[in-house]
């Protein structure tokens, strides 16, 4: 691996890209012209709209039902009419005969009626009714103007009355409210930009990188130039690095141009509108930090998209496979629009989300260095993994030279006989998650215990049995419903208990670094505070999940993911973790899923993992229920967590029992 050759590849790719009008247009020209056009067009439309509405003016009917009876009110009535007539583009007409109809036909947009009423002290109060259609934008504007005019009249009337009473009008002004906004103009601008800037930046980053990435490997396959490159004396990793650097560079160039163009056009727009934004500077330093934070993300996307391009046979396929990545990152990027979410140590670990939230925080200059570092660090770690994977893919000939008959259509056709392919697995899982989210959530909200029972039985267990029935598959075989051997079962409690202790400790550790939000802790403990018998609790928390969830994950879903036991175990554990719809427990649940998958696949009997799952969940219930009992208390640190030394004790127990399990389940030698 020499960087010299990677650089040769890199330089050539850049040269080629710069000669491509489309790329050049998308990366340089488009952002330069897009923002000015967007902003100017937008502001022009906005002001035009407001101006047009105003110019259209209004016809207001004036109904005076008071002056006929009460001559005194004449001057007041007149001053109102004067004030209304003073409004620009307003026509005030005395109530015409066909008032109702004219109002209905919107020839008249508002009717102001003067009447009076007596207050308790016998003082007369003028009553002004303003009739208008509040659902119309124009009508709302008209109402606003009328209200202003009326208030001005009121003020004059008060002054007049006070003067007649020989009172200084100043007397009734004991206070003035003076709002003093301490947010700087920059900060206001920042919080505004912080909403949509992350989204735009992530979008341009992914979209720009995707076009280029598709071209770089899949494009070379399509144009039949890849083989020539492979037989040249550049090694595969040199080629990957050269291409990766190309995507990365172009993505960063794209983002930079976008940021610069955006800031210029914003500044221009502000100087044009002139309002309170005068002298306002854009947060340039923030832009620089953002650019810095974009570096690892650009790198991550470059590697990810390059690996997709490597996998794809042609550009069209590459663009198709890129779609999900673009969708997911766009959705994750949108988190900046959610007003209440701010970056914290945990969210700083979620790729894309972290950058988006960091953007938001940086724009209002309220971010911690730790968040910046965590964000960059996480992204870099993922980035390294992605680059490593890409090099590996590039070295895998079955990927680089996927033959034509490998196409997805044919996969599904070939596997029609076998229902168990990854695609169907994911579809089934997606449906199950949706059912859990909508139905299960609803049931559990209505009644937690009943809801949990129904979820486990009706949503998790039953559909699997139905599907097996429909496919005429034997549940016993498919789900590995086989009685385990005694020596296996005997080991399971040791494995389950020690693993449970360790997993709780792991969760605690995570909690220490990334504190769970208190609302979350509350909702978690709610389940243990149900007013039902311990036996029922045991059924709902330990037995049912032990059976139903095992049937779904270790029995059914695990079958979809290939013959390689290791992959199937890992993927089913991942799904198991996702299924819990709980980012805070993701890792512990995933680890548990790995263990359970191993137990099932290794021993060929799902009973082992059912037992283990039930013990694991049951233990949690046991701990919460008997936390204060003298026989349990010494082991515990607080109501739910074990002391560290218990964990240290559990580690060798788990290791030994797992080792023994591995031994007793070893496949018998054929002889």
């Amino acid at each position: 691996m020499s960087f010299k050759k990677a650089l040769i590849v890199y330089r050539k790719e850049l040269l080629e890209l710069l000669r491509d009008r489309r790329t050049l247009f998308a990366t340089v020209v488009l952002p330069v012209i897009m923002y000015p056009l967007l902003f100017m067009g937008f502001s022009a439309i906005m002001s035009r709209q407001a101006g047009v509405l105003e110019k259209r003016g209004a016809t207001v009917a004036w109904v005076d039902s008071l002056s006929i009876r009460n001559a005194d009110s004449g001057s007041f009535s007149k001053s109102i009419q004067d004030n209304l007539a003073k409004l620009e583009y307003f026509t005030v007409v005395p109530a015409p005969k066909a008032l109702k109809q004219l109002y209905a036909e919107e020839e008249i947009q508002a009717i102001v009626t003067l009447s009076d009423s007596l207050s308790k002290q016998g003082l007369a109060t003028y009553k002004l009714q303003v009739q208008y259609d509040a659902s119309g934008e124009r009508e709302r504007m008209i109402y606003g103007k009328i209200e202003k005019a009326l208030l001005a009249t009121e003020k004059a009337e008060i002054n007049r009355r006070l003067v007649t009473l020989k009172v200084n009008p100043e007397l009734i002004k004991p206070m003035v409210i003076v709002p003093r906004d301490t947010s700087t103009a920059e900060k206001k601008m920042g919080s505004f930009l912080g909403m949509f800037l992350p989204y735009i930046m992530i979008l341009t980053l992914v979209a720009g990188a995707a076009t280029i990435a598709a071209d770089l490997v899949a494009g070379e396959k399509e144009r039949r130039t890849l083989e020539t490159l492979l037989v040249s004396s550049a090694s595969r990793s040199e080629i990957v690095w050269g291409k990766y650097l190309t995507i990365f560079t172009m993505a960063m160039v794209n983002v930079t141009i976008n940021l610069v163009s955006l800031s210029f056009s914003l500044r221009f727009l502000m100087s044009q509108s002139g309002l309170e934004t005068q002298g306002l500077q854009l947060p340039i330093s923030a832009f620089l930090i953002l650019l810095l934070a974009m570096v690892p993300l650009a790198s991550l996307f470059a590697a990810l998209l390059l690996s997709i391009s490597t996998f794809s046979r042609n550009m069209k396929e590459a663009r198709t496979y890129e779609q999900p990545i673009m969708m997911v990152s766009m959705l994750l990027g949108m988190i900046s629009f959610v007003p209440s979410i701010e970056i914290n140590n945990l969210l700083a670990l979620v790729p894309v989300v972290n950058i988006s939230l960091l953007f938001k925080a940086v724009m209002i200059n309220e971010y911690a260095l730790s968040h910046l570092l965590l964000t960059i660090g996480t992204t870099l770690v993922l980035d390294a993994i992605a680059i490593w994977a890409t090099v590996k893919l590039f070295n895998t000939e079955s990927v680089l030279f996927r033959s034509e008959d490998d196409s997805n259509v044919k996969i599904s056709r070939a596997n029609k006989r076998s229902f168990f392919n990854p695609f169907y697995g994911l579809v089934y899982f997606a449906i199950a998650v949706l059912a859990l989210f909508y139905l299960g959530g609803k049931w559990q909200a209505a009644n937690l215990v009943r809801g949990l029972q129904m979820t486990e039985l009706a949503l998790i267990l039953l559909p699997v049995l139905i599907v097996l029935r429909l496919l005429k598959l034997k549940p016993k075989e498919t789900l590995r419903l086989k009685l385990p051997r005694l020596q296996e079962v005997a080991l399971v409690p040791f494995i389950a208990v020690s693993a449970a202790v360790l997993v709780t400790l792991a969760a605690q550790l995570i909690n220490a670094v990334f504190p769970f939000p208190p609302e979350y802790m509350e909702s978690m403990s709610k389940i243990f505070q149900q007013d039902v018998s311990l036996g029922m609790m045991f059924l709902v928390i330990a037995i049912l999940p032990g059976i139903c969830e095992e049937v779904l994950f270790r029995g059914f879903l695990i079958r979809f993911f290939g013959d390689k036991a290791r992959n199937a175990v890992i993927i089913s554990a991942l799904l198991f973790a996702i299924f819990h719809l709980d980012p805070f427990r993701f890792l512990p649940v995933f680890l548990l899923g790995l263990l359970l998958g191993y137990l099932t696949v290794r021993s060929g009997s799902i009973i082992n993992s059912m037992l283990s799952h039930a013990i694991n969940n049951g233990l949690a219930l046991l701990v919460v229920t008997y936390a204060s009992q003298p026989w349990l208390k010494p082991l515990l640190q607080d109501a739910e967590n074990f002391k560290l030394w218990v964990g240290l004790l559990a580690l060798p127990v788990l290791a030994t029992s797992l080792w023994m399990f591995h031994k007793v389940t070893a496949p018998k030698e054929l002889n």
Partner: protein
Amino acid sequence: MIAVQALVKEFPKKDGTTFRAVDEVSFEAAHGEIVCLLGVNGAGKTTTMRILSTVFKPQSGKASIEGFDVLTQGDQVRRNLGFLSGDTGLYARLTPREFIHYFGRLYGVQDNAIKRRIEEMSALLDMREFLDKKMEFLSTGMKQKVSIVRSIIHDPPVMIFDEPTAGLDILTARNIIAFIRDCKQRGKCVLFSTHIMREAERLADRVIMIHQGRILTQGSLPSLREESGLTDLDDIFVYYVNQASADAKVEAHEF
């Protein structure tokens, strides 16, 4: 030189079984010799050549270029090998000069040497006019010339041509044929593949007939004629294919 011993290449099939594209292939090719891999579509020619050029890894067997093992010394193998195939594409937005420089640099050739070589070859192949045109505007014949220069820019001792004349008209094909002969003159070791019997007849010192991944027979043309008692290469090829399937039937009976 090229040395291939009991080479096996299998591709996984969707139903979990494997497909043998190259089955125990062995042969050698020396310097100053043109060896032809002759076989119908899907015979395994390209696959064999891809293994030789380190693009594919064989399941078993050995292959070496100039004594360098294709599995363990890929870098040296590629350095000593020029590869040209009929259906390779070119980078449309580069000029031939840039294209050749690119590969020259990847092979670690000095810029001066690359320049000299481009001059020399473009005089020889009459390609001065289009050296600085974008390649998207070149004709197929021009493109083929560019590929030729690209394939020998690092002056490799071994040349591999995979159906080099596929899709070319007679005149352009003649350029290639002349070039292959030229390689032999310069003492290079040449392996080329084709399914056109005439081409093999005209060029090859030795012919290796390959069918369904297996070598049917190999030898110089006169010796093949003698062995089969036929003159036309087409007939000779069919003769050996029939013989192989007869053998296979006998084998099947024995089981």
